[in-house]
C-alpha cells in the first residue's frame, strides 16, 4: 500500500516524462519524414552524385549506435558548430530524426521502386511533367505501400528515445531513474515504466494500423503485409 501511495504521488511527474518522450518521438518521426522522403526521391530519381551522397548518409547513420551518435552530436558536432546552447531535448530529437531519416529513406525507396515503371511512362505520355507524375501518380501509391514498414519506425524510435537518457534529456527513463534514487523503490517503479512503454508501443502501433485501413483504396491491395 505504501509503495502504491508513493507511486500515485509521483504520477504527475511520471506523466510529464511520458509527454516528453512522446514529444521526442513525434519530433524525430516528423524530421525523419521531412528528410527521408526527399532522400528516397533523390536515391531513385537523382543524378549519380545525389545518389552517392544519400548512400553515404544512410550508411553512416545506420552503421553507428544511437549512443555514439548522441555523444558525437551532443558533445562534439553541435558545440563545434557554435550550437552549444541547444537543449538536450532538441539535440536528442534532432539526432533521432537524422538517424530516422536514414531508415525512413530506405522504406520509401523500396515503396517507390515497387510502383511499376509503366506508371511513370503512362503519366509522362499523358503530358505530365516528371515532377507532376511523381507527385500525383507515384507518391500517392508509394506512400500507401510504405505505411506498414513506416509504422515500424514508431516502436524503433520510441525504444531508442530512452537512450537520450545518456545526454540528460528529461524523458521517461530519466524521470524513472530519478524516482528510483529518491524513493528507494526500485522494481515497482521500473516495472511501471516498462508497462507505460509497452502501452505506448502497442497503442501507437494500433493507431497506425487503423490509419492504414483508413487510407486504403478499395481494390488497391498490397496483400497482407
Amino acid at each position, binding site marked *: 500500500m505504501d509503495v502504491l501511495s508513493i507511486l500515485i504521488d509521483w504520477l504527475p511527474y511520471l506523466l510529464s516524462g511520458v509527454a516528453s518522450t512522446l514529444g521526442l518521438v513525434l519530433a524525430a518521426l516528423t524530421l525523419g519524414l521531412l528528410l527521408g522522403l526527399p532522400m528516397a526521391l533523390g536515391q531513385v530519381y537523382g543524378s549519380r552524385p545525389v545518389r552517392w551522397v544519400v548512400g553515404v548518409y544512410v550508411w553512416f547513420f545506420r*552503421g553507428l549506435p544511437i*549512443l*555514439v*551518435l548522441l555523444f558525437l552530436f551532443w558533445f562534439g558536432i553541435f558545440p563545434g558548430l557554435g550550437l552549444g546552447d541547444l537543449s538536450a531535448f532538441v539535440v536528442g530529437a534532432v539526432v533521432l530524426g537524422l538517424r530516422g531519416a536514414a531508415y525512413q529513406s530506405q522504406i520509401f525507396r523500396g515503396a517507390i521502386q515497387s510502383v511499376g515503371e509503366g506508371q511513370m511512362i503512362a503519366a509522362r505520355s499523358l503530358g505530365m511533367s516528371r515532377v507532376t507524375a511523381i507527385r500525383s501518380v507515384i507518391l500517392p501509391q508509394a506512400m500507401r505501400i510504405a505505411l506498414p514498414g513506416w509504422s515500424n519506425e514508431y516502436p524503433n524510435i*520510441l525504444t531508442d528515445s*530512452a537512450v537520450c537518457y*545518456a545526454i540528460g534529456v528529461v524523458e521517461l527513463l530519466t524521470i524513472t531513474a530519478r524516482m*528510483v534514487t529518491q524513493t528507494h523503490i526500485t*522494481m515497482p517503479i521500473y516495472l511501471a515504466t516498462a508497462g507505460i512503454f509497452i502501452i505506448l*508501443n502497442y497503442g501507437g502501433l494500433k493507431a497506425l494500423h487503423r490509419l492504414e485501413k483508413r487510407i486504403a483504396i478499395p481494390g488497391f491491395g498490397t496483400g497482407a503485409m
Partner: protein
Amino acid sequence: MDQSVFIFDILLPALMQGLVVTLQLIACSAPFGLALGIAVAVGRQYGGRVTSWLCKTFVFLIKGTPLLLLLFILYFGLPAIGITFSAFVASVVGFILCNGAYNAEYIRGALISIKDGQMVAARSLGMTRWQAIKNVILPQALRRAIPGLSNEFIYLIKYSSLAYMLTVIELSGAGKLVATKYFTYTESFAVVGVIYLVLVTITTAAVSILERRVAVPGTARAATAAQL
C-alpha cells in the same frame, strides 16, 4: 597536442581495449541469443497452448520495453529482490533476452514459410514430431532466416554500446573516457564511429559469404540481400 600523436598514442590504444570488451559482449550474447530465438520460435509454433502463449508473451514484453530500461532492471532492479549481477553479466543477459526475442520473430516467420507438407512427409516416414522439426524443418527455416538474423546481429553490435550505461567500459565507453579527459569529443567519437562502421561492414560481407556457403544447391530462392 599533435593530432596524430593523440590519435595513435592515446586514443587508439584505449579504444582497442574497449573493442576487446565489445567483442566479448557480442561473443557471449550472440550464440545464446540465437539459441533462445530458436527455442522461443519453435515453442511458439509447435509447443502446446501454454508454451506457445508463454513464448508469445515473452516476445511481446521484450519488444515493447526499451533495451536500456531492461538493462536497468537487470542491473539496478534485480538486486532489490536479491539477485545481483556484475555489470558485464547484466549486459550480456539483457542482450541475450533482447536479441533472442527479435531473432524468434524472424525464425518464426521462416518456420511458417516451410510448407506443411514437409512435416506430413517427415511424419509419414516414421519420424517423431521433434525429429521432423530438428532434421527437416529447422535446417531449411534457419537458412531462410539468415538475412533477418544477420540484421539482428548487426543491431547487437550497435546496441552493445548500451553496456556503457551500466559502467562496462566497452568501445563507446572507452571513447567517452578519452574524450572527457582530453576534451576531444568530436575526434574521439568520430574514431569510435569509424570502428563501429568497420565492424558492421565486415559483418555484412561475412553474412553474404555465409549465406552462399550454407546454401543448398537447387533450393535457392530469389536472393534477399542482407541489409543493415
